[in-house]
C-alpha cells in the first residue's frame, strides 16, 4: 500500500480544524473553586475522560481534568456487560476498576499532568477508612484538588452509598480534609431525598466545593434473554435524560450552601452550561457527551463564548445563580 501524502488544506482533518479554531468574543469564563482558579468552567466528569483523548480535543483548553475514581488497591471492576443505552441516556456498571494508588502515581498521573491544566484526582473507597487511606497515599502527590466520590457502596453498611447519609458524609469529608492541604470537592449522589442536607454536611466538614451529582440508579432488561443487561444488574444513568433532574439538584444545592457547586449530569451544549450556571453552578463537568462526540467539551467552550456574547454576558461569573423562579 502506498501512503498518500497530501498536505493541501482540504486534507486537514476536521480534528485539525477544531484544534486550530479558537474562542473569538473574549467572554471572561474564569471561575474559582475556593483558592483554585480555573480558566473556564468546563472539565470532564470522572470516569469519562482519559489521556487517550489527547489527540482528539485540545485538552489544554479545559478548565481542569478529572481522573477516574482511584482506589487505594488494585480492583478489577464489574462483570460485563458494563454499558448499555436508554432513551437519551446510558447506563454503566463499570464498577470502578482501579490500578491502585501506587501504579496510578507511577504511570497514570504523569499523563494527566502533561496537559498543563489543573488535575483533580477523584478518590473512592468501600469503607470510611479507605477514603482516609487513599488521601494519605496521595499526600505528596502533585495535583490541584481531590474529588471525593461518596457514591461508592458502603460495604460496611449494607452497600447503600456512603453519600446517602449526612452524618457519614460529614465524617468522611472531615477526615479527608484533615489529611490533605488540597481543595476537597465532594461529589454527591443524587439518590437522596434531600440533596441540601448532604451538601450542607459536606460544607460543614470543610469541603471546598460540591459536585452535583453522580449517576442515577437504573436498570435495563434483555427481554429475549430474560435477564438484566448489565452484569451487575443495576447501573448508573447519565446523559441528557437526567439533565432536568440535575439542574434542579444544582439549584437546590446552591441554595443550601455557600461553597461552589459543580454541576454534572447531561451537559452537552453551551446552552446547558449556561442553564447550570444560572441555576447556581460555578463550573460543570461533562461525561456522556464526550462519548457521543470526543470534542464536545472544547466545542462547548467556543460555543459558550459566543452564546454569552449573544446574550450580553461579559463575565460568566456575573450571572451565576441569577435565575428567577
Amino acid at each position: 500500500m502506498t501512503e498518500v501524502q497530501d498536505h493541501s488544506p482540504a486534507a486537514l482533518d476536521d480534528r485539525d480544524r477544531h484544534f486550530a479554531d479558537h474562542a473569538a468574543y473574549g467572554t471572561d469564563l474564569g471561575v474559582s473553586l475556593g483558592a483554585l482558579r480555573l480558566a473556564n468552567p468546563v472539565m470532564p466528569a470522572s470516569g469519562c475522560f482519559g489521556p487517550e483523548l489527547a489527540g482528539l480535543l485540545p485538552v489544554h483548553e479545559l478548565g481542569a481534568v478529572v481522573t477516574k475514581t482511584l482506589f487505594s488497591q488494585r480492583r478489577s471492576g464489574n462483570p460485563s456487560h458494563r454499558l448499555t443505552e436508554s432513551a437519551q441516556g446510558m447506563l454503566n456498571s463499570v464498577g470502578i476498576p482501579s490500578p491502585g494508588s501506587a501504579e496510578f502515581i507511577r504511570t497514570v498521573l504523569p499523563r494527566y499532568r502533561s496537559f498543563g491544566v489543573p488535575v483533580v484526582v477523584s478518590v473512592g473507597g468501600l469503607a470510611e477508612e479507605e477514603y482516609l487511606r487513599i488521601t494519605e497515599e496521595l499526600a505528596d502527590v502533585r495535583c490541584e484538588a481531590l474529588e471525593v466520590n461518596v457514591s461508592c457502596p458502603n460495604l460496611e453498611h449494607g452497600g447503600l452509598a456512603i453519600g446517602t447519609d449526612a452524618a457519614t458524609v460529614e465524617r468522611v469529608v472531615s477526615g479527608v480534609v484533615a489529611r490533605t492541604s488540597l481543595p476537597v470537592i465532594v461529589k454527591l449522589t443524587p439518590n437522596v431525598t434531600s440533596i441540601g442536607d448532604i451538601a450542607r454536611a459536606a460544607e460543614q466538614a470543610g469541603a471546598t466545593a460540591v459536585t452535583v451529582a453522580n449517576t442515577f440508579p437504573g436498570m435495563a432488561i434483555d427481554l429475549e434473554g430474560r435477564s438484566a443487561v448489565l452484569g451487575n444488574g443495576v447501573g448508573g444513568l447519565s446523559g441528557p435524560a437526567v439533565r432536568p433532574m440535575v439542574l434542579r439538584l444544582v439549584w437546590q444545592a446552591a441554595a443550601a450552601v455557600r461553597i461552589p457547586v459543580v454541576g454534572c449530569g447531561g451537559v452537552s451544549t453551551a446552552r446547558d452550561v449556561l442553564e447550570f450556571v444560572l441555576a447556581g453552578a460555578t463550573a460543570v463537568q461533562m461525561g456522556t457527551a464526550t462519548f457521543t462526540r470526543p470534542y464536545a467539551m472544547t466545542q462547548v467552550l467556543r460555543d459558550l463564548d459566543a452564546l454569552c456574547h449573544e446574550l450580553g454576558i461579559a463575565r460568566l461569573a456575573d450571572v451565576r445563580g441569577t435565575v428567577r423562579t
Partner: protein
Amino acid sequence: MNTPLDTEAGIPVRDSVTPLGETADGAGTRAGAGLPAPTWHRARVLVSTPYGRGYHFLRLEAPSIARTCQAGQFVMLTAARDGDDGPVLPRPMAVYGRDPRAGTIDILLGVVGDGTRRLASFRPGERMLVVGPLGQGFRLAPRTRRVLLLGRGIGTCSLTTVAQECAGTDVEIVAVASGRSADRVVGADVYRAAGVTRLHEVTDDTGASDVTRLRDMLTADLDQAPPQQIMTCGSERLARLCEELGRRWAADVQVSLEAHMACGLGYCHGCATGTRSGPEESPLICADGPVFRLSRPDADR
C-alpha cells in the same frame, strides 16, 4: 442483546483470549508503537444504500482514517446528527473496505436496533461523525504465506480488510463467508476485488455452513498446504472450529470480539472481556482488542 456472535454452552470465547500485544511478562503493550493515532472526521456520506437482507452499506469520506487504518481495526460512528437528539453512544463498526487514494472507508452494517437504523437513515451529502482508526487489528506475521479467513454474517466485515491488505502481495487468502442464507452472506465483493485465492460462500440453507461439513471441507482443502494464520469473527462456533484447526495445523489463531462500547479508546472501561480472577481487570476489547489471540485457558499453547 443483538449480537452476531452465536452463543453456545461452555466458556465464552471472550474468556479464552489473550491480547496480541501481551508480552511474556504479562505487561500489556496497549497502543503499541505501530498503531496509527486515532482522529475524527465529520465525514461526508458518499454512498448509503441497502445491501442484502437487513444490511446497509455506507461509504464515508474520511481521508486520514482511510490512509492509516489497519486490517481489523474499527471506527466509532455517531448516530446522532448534529443538533438533533439521538443515541448518546456511538456504534463500533469494522472498516469493511477502504480506499486510501480516494480517502474513503466503507462500512457494512447489520440493521438491528435504533442506532444502526439511524446510521442507515443518513443520506448521501449528510455528515456523520466517525472516530478512528481504533483498536488492535489482525497481525499478519512476516513469515505467513497463507491465511484462512473464517467469517460469519456481519462478522465477515472485520476480515475483508485483511484480504485488501494482502492484495498484490505473495500472501494467499482462503476465505469462508458463512451466513444464514445467501442474502445474509457478506464480503464476497471485497474478497473478489482483492483477488483471494479461494472463496467459499456457505449458508445454513444448504447445510454447507454446518461446522462438521466446514471442518471436512477445510481439512480436505488445506491439510496439504495449511495456513500459518487463521482469523475469524462473528461466531463462537466458528471460533472453536478455528481453534481446533489451529491446533491441527499449528497455526496462529486470531479472533475479533465485540462488546458494548462507549469510548472505543480505552478510558471508559466499559468493554472489558470478562472478570479475570484476581484484582487485575480483564482485557479491554476496544484497546487490547478487538482482535485477540485465541487460546483456551485449558489448552497447552
